[in-house]
């Protein structure tokens, strides 16, 4: 595992040459995926604690490669491309540390450290002047919510003398509601769930394409991953607060989906769809059943790839048309028909159509939530229906329609863009049988 951290830090030597950096990332992903069998648990050795860490680490390497490939315009038109690449690789190193560590305090340190690159990416390479306030929103929401997490970790350290994930499950002998909220609040804001979600649409709209991709693809999953790691310790208080958290998740998810349909900015629409998907993740974590946790992992991986792909598509439109407004972007099926294929595939995957693993994750989570309370079928059904509605709205608004006056400088997808989108879609479809083995 350490070899990957070192490989990532050696990539700092290649900041001027983007081609070599991306090549190394692909090679790293290959070795990570294939060259580690025979080490025992979860395809890799004892630094990687289990299958979920492995999947999320793989996802972060892959999304970083995609993000750099998508951002070649930064090299030509924007300033400080070496710093851009450096921030991306630095973020990867800390993400690998956070997903690969078995110590809760180390996880916290890496969790906080990943905030700095995304803050600088949004602030430095974003598009509008509103990016300043958006990056502050991102930073302060997450920091304010995660300070209680630090206090909770120190509390656990002093009462139990160990912060290792293995021992956290053994120490749950008492239920303490204060500790419950201390530990969980940071992850609720990071996921984000409905009441702590305000930073997400702002940050996504103002971020550059690469920033949005890594934010939606991996950084939101830090919240879900942290929750799954911490829940064994606070399990006894979970039943006390489960009805509250479940209602926040269910009703918040439906509300976020309804708000989603009303968005006029494409990026804001995809950002709110992330809120709705992550509400499902909270659902699975709170229910704490095997099916629920399998659904959580599946939704995290598949949402990472799908959302990242959607942000790439919106970024391509923004580069060409200079606008992200749903009202102005239309008739892409006549202007760029090859991109319509990708728009269609990502839109239907986002609405959990087969054969995407989003469907698998939603089915697992529906099973677990209906098992918890039958009436939740109305709310998760509503969430799924609204997901279909806003994805259909996004696709039909952007692709269909009569010709628009913005079509003068519109070109179809270049080879690079096709490659990025293919590399999002192919693992997505190929992962379906792999993810279905989670809950054997």
């Amino acid at each position, binding site marked *: 595992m350490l070899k990957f951290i070192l490989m990532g830090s050696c990539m700092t030597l290649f900041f001027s040459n983007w081609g070599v950096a991306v*090549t190394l990332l692909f090679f790293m992903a*290959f070795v990570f995926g294939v060259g580690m069998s025979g080490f025992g648990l979860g395809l890799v050795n004892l630094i990687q604690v289990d299958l979920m860490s492995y999947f999320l680490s793989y996802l972060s390497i892959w999304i970083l*490669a995609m993000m750099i490939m998508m951002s*070649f315009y930064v090299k030509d038109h924007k300033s400080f491309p070496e710093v851009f690449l450096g921030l991306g690789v630095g973020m990867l190193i800390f993400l690998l540390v956070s997903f690969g560590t078995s110590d809760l305090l180390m996880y916290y340190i890496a969790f906080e450290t990943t905030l700095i690159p995304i803050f600088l990416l949004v602030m430095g390479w974003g598009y509008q002047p509103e990016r300043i306030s958006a990056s502050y929103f991102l930073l302060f929401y997450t920091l304010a919510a995660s300070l209680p997490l630090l206090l909770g970790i120190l509390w656990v350290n002093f009462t139990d003398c160990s912060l290792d994930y293995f021992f956290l499950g053994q120490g749950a002998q008492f239920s303490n509601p204060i500790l419950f909220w201390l530990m969980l609040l940071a992850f609720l804001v990071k996921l984000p769930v409905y009441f702590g979600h305000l930073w997400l649409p702002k940050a996504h709209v103002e971020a550059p394409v690469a920033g949005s991709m890594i934010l939606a693809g991996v950084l939101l999953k830090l919240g879900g991953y942290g929750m799954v790691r911490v829940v064994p310790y606070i399990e006894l208080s979970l039943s006390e607060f489960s009805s509250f958290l479940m209602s926040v998740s269910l009703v918040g998810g439906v509300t976020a989906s309804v708000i989603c349909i009303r968005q006029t900015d494409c990026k804001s629409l995809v950002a709110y769809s992330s809120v709705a998907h992550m509400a499902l993740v909270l659902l699975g974590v709170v229910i704490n059943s095997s099916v629920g946790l399998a659904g959580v992992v599946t939704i995290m991986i598949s949402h990472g790839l799908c959302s990242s792909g959607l942000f790439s598509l919106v970024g391509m439109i923004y580069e060409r048309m200079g606008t992200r407004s749903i009202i102005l972007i239309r008739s892409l099926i006549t202007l760029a028909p090859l991109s319509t294929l990708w728009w269609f595939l990502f839109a239907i995957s986002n609405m959990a159509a087969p054969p995407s693993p989003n469907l698998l994750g939603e089915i697992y989570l529906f099973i677990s939530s209906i098992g918890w309370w039958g009436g939740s079928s109305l709310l998760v059904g509503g969430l799924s229906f609204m997901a279909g509605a806003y994805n259909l709205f996004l696709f039909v608004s952007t692709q269909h329609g009569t010709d628009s006056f913005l079509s003068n400088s519109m070109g179809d997808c270049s*080879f*690079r863009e096709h*490659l990025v989108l293919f590399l999002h879609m192919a693992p997505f479809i190929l992962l379906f049988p792999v993810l279905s083995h989670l809950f054997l």
Partner: protein
Amino acid sequence: MAFVVRSGRLAGPLRNYLRPIAIGNRCISTSKKKDETAVVTEKIPSHKVTHDIDVAAASARKKWMTYGFTTQDETEDVALAHLFSLFGITLCIVIGSLAYMYGPDHALRDWSQREAYLLVREREAKGLPLLDPNYVDESTVVLPSEEDLGAYEIII
């Protein structure tokens, strides 16, 4: 007054109407010009290129279709396209899928299924229950006698 100014503007278009009359003055004869006195003196420039061509300038002039990676240098663009396709698709997706499908039995999944079938066959042949409620054989368990226990309370 206005008429004077406005009719002045007719002069331009009027010339276009008058032009057909002038066409008759144009010589369209293709026979050799016997009375031509002008002589062409300057040399016709040769089309052979004698100086070194700058590669980038040549490719810019050649109007190559970019792969999308860079618009400045064709060589770099083609190289990046080939590199990323090789490493991204061939290496990671194709060979990665191959390794996953044909790799060794990860997490002993196939072994456990085979072992389960073998054990079921074995137990059915011996007439034993498929899943014994006791983890260990009851005859091997040695319980302490009443004197050893004394007043120790046993809660089940």
